[in-house]
């Protein structure tokens, strides 16, 4: 390690004040601090500091996402071979998915970090770690057949408009990955919805699926439910267990609730994500699901779906665990987090059921609550302020 350290120190002067490459200091600095926690000592304030830093925090989230990523890769292959009717073993399925998901990952990180580097060089700021997680999230929340250039455009849009214009990591109002998702959805709706994008299948002329088994539909479970497949046949097609384990079509990382729960366990165990948001979101979704059950008309499959299905289908679990808990865009106060999470649960299911165009509401619900989070905090803090003001009055009386 000493050799590596010496090498870095050898190049350092070029990037320091007055060096030829000083402009690129943020890039060098990010590499340097990635490898070595710098030997900076405390100058002001407390003399000793906690071992935690933003890199460690972000890393924990990335590790928590790995089960979803791996399962997602396998499921891409699994769905493909189901559609074509070929048989394949575990490794073959995984490898099939791996070579299709990898480009998405590369594009997302490449474009996102590229944009981030450019902004930091222009502004002369150090590069903050926020995108490490966003870059991983973006490939996991898109359909497998989305064109790479779209992902690139969406990522660039999300980083620039979603984050950098507000001042970078920590300053953004909207979750960056969801901004990319929303951009894709509204800019290229045909590539983000419908029955044609969720499963990677061989394509014939005009992009129509070719070489697939008879009766292949390519729709997601929610798509089927929205098109009013009767509840019995829906439940026959997608068992709750399938939905829980994730062997159904959907965005790459969102299908397996089991993999998500492993990630959630790590996030809760390490205390990185807010359990308040997760729990209240869960309660909100259950409550909304039960309300819909109670008032469901006979032909509305989505409303008839048991709340448990709602938790397991679509992007709800993934969104709640990995996106709603984004500390920057969520409510900041503990009371606020309860309200924020609960409303995400309610709205996710509500949008999912009532949105005529697209049977999924989680990303819209979270984005909407991202915008509302400061308002929630405002009222929570006002309550604290009023309490203090009341105390002054009592003291004066």
């Amino acid at each position, binding site marked *: 390690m000493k050799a590596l350290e010496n090498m870095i120190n050898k190049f350092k002067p070029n990037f320091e004040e007055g060096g030829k490459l000083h402009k690129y200091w943020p890039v060098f600095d990010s590499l340097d601090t990635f490898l070595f926690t710098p*030997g900076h000592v405390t100058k002001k304030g407390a003399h000793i500091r906690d071992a935690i830093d933003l890199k460690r925090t972000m890393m924990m989230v990335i590790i928590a996402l790995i089960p979803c990523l791996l399962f997602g890769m396998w499921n891409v292959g699994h769905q493909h071979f189901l559609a074509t009717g070929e048989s394949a073993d575990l490794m073959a399925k995984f490898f099939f998915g791996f070579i299709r998901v990898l480009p998405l990952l590369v594009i997302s990180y490449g474009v996102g970090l590229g944009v981030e580097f450019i902004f930091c060089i222009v502004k002369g700021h150090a590069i903050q770690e926020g995108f490490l997680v966003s870059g991983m999230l973006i490939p996991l929340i898109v359909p497998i057949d989305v064109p790479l250039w779209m992902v690139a455009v969406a990522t660039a849009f999300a980083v620039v408009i979603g984050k950098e214009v507000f001042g970078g990591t920590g300053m953004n109002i909207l979750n960056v990955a969801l901004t990319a998702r929303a951009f894709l959805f509204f800019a290229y709706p045909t590539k983000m919805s419908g029955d044609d994008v969720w499963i990677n299948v061989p394509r014939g002329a005009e992009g129509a699926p070719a070489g697939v088994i008879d009766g292949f539909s390519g729709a997601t479970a929610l798509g089927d439910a929205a098109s009013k497949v009767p509840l019995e046949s829906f439940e026959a097609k997608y068992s709750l267990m399938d939905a829980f384990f994730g062997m159904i079509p959907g965005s790459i990382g969102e299908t397996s609730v089991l993999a998500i729960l492993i990630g959630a366990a790590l996030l809760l165990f390490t205390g990185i994500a807010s359990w308040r948001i997760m729990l209240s979101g869960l309660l909100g979704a259950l409550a909304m699901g039960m309300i819909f059950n109670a008032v469901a008309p006979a032909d509305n499959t989505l409303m008839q779906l048991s709340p448990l299905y709602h938790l397991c289908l679509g992007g709800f679990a993934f969104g709640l665990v990995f996106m709603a808990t984004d500390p920057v865009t969520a409510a900041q106060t503990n009371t606020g987090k309860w309200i924020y999470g609960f409303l995400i649960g309610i709205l996710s299911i509500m949008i999912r059921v009532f949105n005529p165009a697209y049977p999924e509401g989680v990303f819209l619900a979270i984005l909407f609550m991202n915008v509302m989070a400061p308002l929630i905090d405002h009222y929570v803090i006002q309550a604290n302020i009023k309490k203090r003001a009341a105390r002054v009055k009592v003291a004066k009386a």
Partner: protein
Amino acid sequence: MSGVIKIKKGLNINLVGESEKIYSQIGSPNYVSIKPSDFTYLTPKMQVKVGDEVLAGDLVFVDKDKPSTGVASPVSGEITEIIRGEKRKILEVKILADKEIRYKDFGSATPSKMSREEILTRLSESGALAFFVERPFGGTVNADVAPRDIFVTGFDSNPLAADFDFALHGKEELVKTALEALAKLTEGTVYVGVSSKAGHGAIFEKSRGLEHVEFNSFQGQHPVGNVGVQIHATKPINKGETVWTMSAYDLAIVGGVFTEGKFDASRNVAVAGPGVKAPKYIKTIIGAPINDIVSGNVHDDKEYRLVSGSPLTGTQVTKEGNLGYFDSQVVALEEGHSPKFVATEGWLSLGFKRFSASRAYPTWLLGRNKQYNIDTNVNGEHRSFVVSGQYEKVFPFNIYPVHLLKAIMANDIEAQEALGIYEVLPEDFALCDFVCTSKIDAQVILADGLKSLRAELG
């Protein structure tokens, strides 16, 4: 009030090198040094000049804005140097000490038989008033404004803190006398916070049952010993109110100016920390040279940082520096100059040796009593606020700490007031400094905020 007040939030940081309950006497120092910067906001008005002879208890300087508060010389001797910095700001006053300390005689007095004015005069002329801190803002006290109440914290919960019961052993009478004096200074009550731990609070054994003095027992992790936390849990400060606070550590000195009629600034200081060979208590005096206190007792294998005061709030000193006016501990911490490689010691390591309040490191699985050698490395780089809810876990106030800091950064005075800035001092944010993922210097922000708010209010 009976019963125990439980403070649920906080964090005990166990550092290696806690002081053993033994003490050494070191000879009286050759010189002492007093720094006006130990007293927040104080602008010194010198009462002596170079070459003057002083007795222990003679005022060296007074607060220009609050002339009743003056700072007394801990020793007798000759003023040898007044060190000035930029714009002739007085940084330090050096006093060459006599071999045998001669005390200014104020005459023995009994506070219970004195009036408030007489007590104030005695405290003021002997320099003992300098040990009081005024809240809000944490400056020296204004004797013209009677405090609503007086709060005394009876213990220190900082890492490696001195045990007051041990440090003040044998001075129980002086403590009692001091509390009697304090009780006369306020129309309200003198609240004394004691630790609920078994066997703690022995220094108050003679003081129990004093009139207008109320003892409250506190249980919890640091900052439970901070007087600000104790005030917040008993009777919070409202806008427009003033309270005085002090540490029980200084009560013996205050008691001494009545019982003995002299300003006896001797202290029993805890010398502790990972860099100390034999952590123990040293009997010395306010302003004594650090070199005398730690002489030969600091390892020389690595570079160590000496801190007068707590690792969380203290002042960095060199061996040529001096013990701060309020400080009860001197700590030697390892300097964390060397970069840490990502996989072995850095942010991707397992981190069994890295203390963290967050559960992203395994500290919390290793038990509460494990001791850590935490060096002075920042352990990361400065970032924007990202993680939420982190300060709240170690900040036992019904205040939103991050929002308060942001109100300060935005210079929004109304918001600062509304969010409760009058109830806190930088020391209350020390743990926020410590736990911050984004490595934000919360104490510095608050100190700046209080300073500009105070200037704004005039």
